[in-house]
């Protein structure tokens, strides 16, 4: 289980935004957005803040840290 989870897919759906649109907004490739959404890649702090900024929410509403062994 990944230790950093995210709500990007849900936030995208709420904002009616495609993966490509989000990728363009934060300056990464669509493949990177896919990897982040699938919890396979944890973005840098800068990119994480950019994502939160795009959706207009706090960082904690986009990413959640789940320490291992607490499930």
């Amino acid at each position: 289980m990944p230790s950093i989870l995210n709500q990007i897919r849900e936030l995208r759906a709420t904002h009616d935004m495609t993966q490509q649109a989000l990728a363009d907004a934060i300056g990464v490739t669509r493949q990177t957005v896919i990897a982040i959404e699938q919890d396979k890649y944890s973005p840098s702090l800068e990119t994480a803040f950019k994502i939160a900024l795009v959706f207009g929410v706090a960082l904690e509403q986009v990413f959640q840290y789940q320490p291992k062994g607490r499930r």
Partner: protein
Amino acid sequence: MPQLSYQEKSLYGSLIAEILVYGPYFFLHNQNSIGKVAGMIIGIIVLQIVIQLAIVAFTRNRLKDERDKLIELRGYRAGYFAMVSLMVFGLFMLWLHTALGELPVNRMGLHFLSVFFGILVISDIVKTVTQIIAYRRSL
């Protein structure tokens, strides 16, 4: 090639070029020579330029982001470990064959060149394949 980023296409292009040039060189040649090594170097450079230009021409978004850089670093790390390991092994084998008298000392230079070049080629392929695997596994 749908669903592939520019970096992935570029890596597949590199792998194809490496296989096309290095494959025949290492598996079909009978005797090594400076001319063949030079031909291989020129061949890989020309083929890489042609393939990469074609990929650039057919790819609009050529963005390189933080994940691409991380995957690139992983590839270089794997390639470096492959190179160091093979270098130690290759030099040991050269010494062993010379010590056993199977390798004439006057042909040592050419054999060393061949082994050294082989190590560079394998390391390069390890680097490329590692990067492709990282992309396919989404890192």
